[in-house]
């Protein structure tokens, strides 16, 4: 599946911001199952410094410094990305979750895809006994890892209410868990906290969802802004599998990956520090449009 992605994030500030530094993770990169045909990324006002680099997890990071006083800050991403589904895993055939736990703690891969980075508490996801206990119901002794994780994903989908007013970007996982409500970020954090509480590796993925559903299907939740889901590690052989608790979906070709990390704090699309903005207003527009057929590979025209 090939998608054309347009995202515009616009901030307006109550007071002119004289100096701002931002760390932006809004450029998709190639990864297994994902090919970036073209991408274009721009910000306003014009930065005085622009450094593009890759972070530990392989995400594209752009550091910018703006010294023009501004009350508006806009970030625009355009990309054409081809997504192909990996081989479908058989949930019942994945190793027992206890074996996955042991394999993760003795793993000898220090690199970015190692499960070792994803089994510990992280800045935005501390471990929580309450969430762990609730999660444990999906993992009776000996249950295959992926079967347990899918069960957990479905329980979150069924028992939690999607409600953008219930939480915001800073809400801790435990609070959303107690509310039994939230948005994609909350559901991903809760699922991650629960899995890690049992010693199981789980990563946070941010990205895009196709905006319009395939004919005859319902519109997916989370298509209005940057989406987030979970990737679980199912042992050396099966590796990572994406699971979207907001839509109870096993990730295949409806999702485009932007960045992955331990939790939201590793992948926040636009981070940074700015001085004296006063009240901020934010608007996000996303379009993720499937291309009808494989188009010729050519440069994107600028807007």
């Amino acid at each position: 599946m090939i998608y054309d992605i347009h995202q515009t994030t616009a901030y307006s500030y109550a007071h002119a911001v004289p100096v701002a530094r931002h760390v932006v993770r809004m450029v998709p990169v190639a990864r297994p199952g994902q090919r970036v045909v073209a991408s274009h990324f721009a910000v306003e006002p014009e930065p005085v410094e622009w450094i593009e680099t890759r972070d530990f997890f392989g995400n594209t990071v752009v550091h910018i410094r703006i010294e023009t006083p501004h009350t508006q800050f806009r970030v625009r991403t355009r990309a054409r990305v081809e997504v192909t589904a990996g081989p479908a895993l058989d949930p019942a055939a994945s190793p027992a979750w206890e074996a996955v736990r042991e394999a993760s703690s003795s793993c000898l891969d220090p690199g970015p895809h190692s499960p070792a980075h994803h089994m510990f508490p992280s800045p935005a996801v501390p471990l929580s006994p309450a969430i762990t206990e609730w999660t444990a119901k999906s993992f009776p002794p000996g249950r295959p890892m992926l079967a347990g994780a899918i069960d957990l994903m479905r329980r979150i989908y069924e028992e939690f209410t999607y409600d953008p007013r219930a939480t915001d970007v800073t809400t801790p996982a435990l609070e959303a868990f107690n509310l039994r409500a939230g948005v994609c970020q909350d559901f991903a954090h809760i699922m991650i906290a629960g899995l890690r509480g049992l010693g199981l590796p789980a990563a946070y993925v941010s990205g895009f969802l196709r905006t319009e559903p395939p004919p005859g299907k319902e519109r997916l939740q989370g298509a209005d802004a940057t989406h987030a889901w979970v990737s679980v590690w199912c042992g050396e052989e099966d590796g990572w599998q994406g699971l979207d608790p907001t839509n109870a979906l096993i990730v295949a070709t409806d999702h485009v990956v932007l960045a992955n990390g331990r939790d939201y704090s590793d992948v926040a699309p636009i981070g940074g520090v700015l001085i004296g903005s006063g009240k901020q207003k934010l608007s996000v527009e996303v379009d993720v449009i499937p291309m009808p057929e494989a188009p010729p590979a050519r440069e994107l025209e600028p807007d």
Partner: protein
Amino acid sequence: MPRRSEPQARTRRFEEEAVEALLAGYKTLPGVHDELVDAEGYPRAHWHSMLAALAEMGVEEVNRRFQAADRHLYRSGVFYRVYDDPNGGERPWPLSHLPLVIDEREWQALERGLIQRAQLVEAVLADIYGDGQLVRSGALPAAAIAGSPDFLRPMVGVDPNGGTFLRIYAADVGRGPDGSWWVVSDRTQSPSGAGYALENRIAIGRALPDLARSLNVVRLASYFQAMRAGLTRLDRSGEGRVGLLTPGPLNETYFEHAYLARYLGFVLLEGEDLTVRDNVVFVRTVAGLKRVDVLLRRLDSDYADPLELNPRSRLGIPGLVQAIRSGGVAVVNAVGVGVVEAPALMGFLPKLGQRVLGEAPILPNVATWWCGQKAERERVLDSFEDLVISPAFQRTLPGLLDKGSVIGADLDRAHRARIKAAIRARGVDFVGQEAARLSTMPVWRNGKLEPRPFILRIFLTATETGWKVMPGGFCRVSDSLDARAVTMQSGGRSADVWVLDAGPTEQTSLLPAVDRVEIKRQTGPLPSRAADNFFWLGRYIERAETTLRLLRTLMGRLSSSLEGGGSSLGGLVSLLQLWGAMPADLATTKPARHALAALSRRDLHGSLPNIIEAARHTASVIRDRLSPDAWRTLADLSLMMAEPVPAASAEPDAYERSDRALRALAAFSGLASENMNRLAGWRFLDLGRRIERAIATCRFARTLAGEAPTAGALDVLLELCDSQITYRSRYVMVESRAPVLDLVLLESVNPRSLAYQIDAIMAHLDQLPGHLGDEPPPPEERLAARLVASMRAFDALDFDDARLREIEGQLMELSNDVAERYFIHRQPVETPWDLVS
């Protein structure tokens, strides 16, 4: 003096009764090594001289000398160990007076072991942040690194500038029952204690100078010189600018940061002082941005950069990591080195030594089993009761190990079951460690020696030719008799460490036993934050003096109230109200009570205790730039303000208190004018004073010498401006408005006159950096020029209420202009919001 190391020393040469008496009751703990006496209870050879000296001095003399050491620490300001919170966080530095004596041969073995350990730790860090071969080859599980919150992923693949991750390494060591030393923990993040070790040495060196000399105690200075040289060498731009990066005065070891910065001649910097432009780090100074090449980091790594590390940090420098990555700055120790402090790694380091260095470890570390591995986990669960159970990566594990390490056997049954279950579920979070029992050393208690367990921190610094070990250390002595290492991590007292030099003495010209380093103080441009604090310190000090003068004059008039002068009393009271030192709605019947209030009440924003507190707080953040004497004067003032006010006999008391406080302020002013270099710091201090005094003088004049003032009011004005004697020596007549105003406003040779202040302000502004001759003068200079012109252009009688108010307004504007130009403008820092669906 001969060293008593002959074999016959063991045959009770020390039968002098005094030594006997000292050792009477010295009961060592069973199964524990003691530093002072051997298994049969005989003193070890390297302690003989110490014992003999103590015996010879006698109990009273020893007590007297130890008290002198305490006084020294108090006077040096080490007294304020914990940050001076207003609620009595001011604790005396707890010094255990007897030093730990270590024989040279033994020390050399320790040195060799620690140098090897430092090399190992450096190599492991290079691998962890480098190509990860130790993990790939199976020597170290990835999770043993990934579990540490100090494993900072943005630093992977980043070369530490200057070639090494560590430039300072410290280890806590202890001696086991069999007499051999063990590493209890590694300290790399930002090892603290070296500055305290130096303070302890100076204090004890003063208490026991003869002994320190005759025993040939090795001096510490060479260590600090080596450290300084090592850091200065990293300075590439050759401007010699090395900063000590501190989290600020709220940190518990802030005293040490200020002390070391002062001692080593480095600039003490907070994150706010620094900015990154195009991958270069700059200090904001009064002369603009100045490059810094080397930062000695005392701020935890994670807080160093809110952009790439902990986004909640408000102490760090946005962009620092990118500056490191591009080679623009050397941060020492490298950001991320805390990862090797994790107890989990101790389970692997001994084996890694063989692999990395090809050598067996000289010093073992406490046996450690990381429960992330199956076999190790089983072993810990099997012998749970005998082991120390610790969090594998952090200090505590909330809900399980809330206070950190515990001994399995000390837990009740339920707690034991919970932790065992947690180890089975998430073994990666735990280690089991051998419950090491540490040796004891003597402490001086009530004229006798008693054994107490201790742990010793030893410091190493990287030099061009390898690691150099500080010949001494920071020894923490327990207050209790529990010798298990796990209980030693906090509390207790600290002791000096004497390494005895057996070689020929270097009786050089240095003063006995006092460590001296002749280090040239860098006098680079003053950081803006320091200038800001100097300026406000000046203003607060002057405001305190103004308030005290008003109060003392008020008290004086009250006691001679027969002379009337009701209007002058009213004037004084309204001035005090203007500064917020007296309640606005006071009943005028009892000004004495209100004067007392101004001296003691904290709910009045302009009361003396509040102004003094503000001055002291301001001074505390530039402590590295103030003399210890100046700092003590402020501390004394603040203690004076805390004394309770007796309800009765209010007037004499208030008078006495104002008078004492004024004298203390005079002492501070004297120190400032006599002892401070005429550098930018002093200039801002004095500029603040002059502006404050000029404003006060305007207020005095318009309140007391308005139209048709009484003679009494003019007399009060003269007294407030310290000009009575001059006036009377010139005019044989009662006070009259024109000559009084001329003296207090316009006479430019009177150091209390308005004109004098304005001339001084102008002179300071001329000398401050940043003003180029060709440019139009900045606003504060133009204002000052206008003020100078007013002083020349008008007669005394032209200074009516309106004109004085105008000048007052211009002075306040000038103060703002100075702040605008030279200081850092604290604006709220925010992070961009986000929407997620």
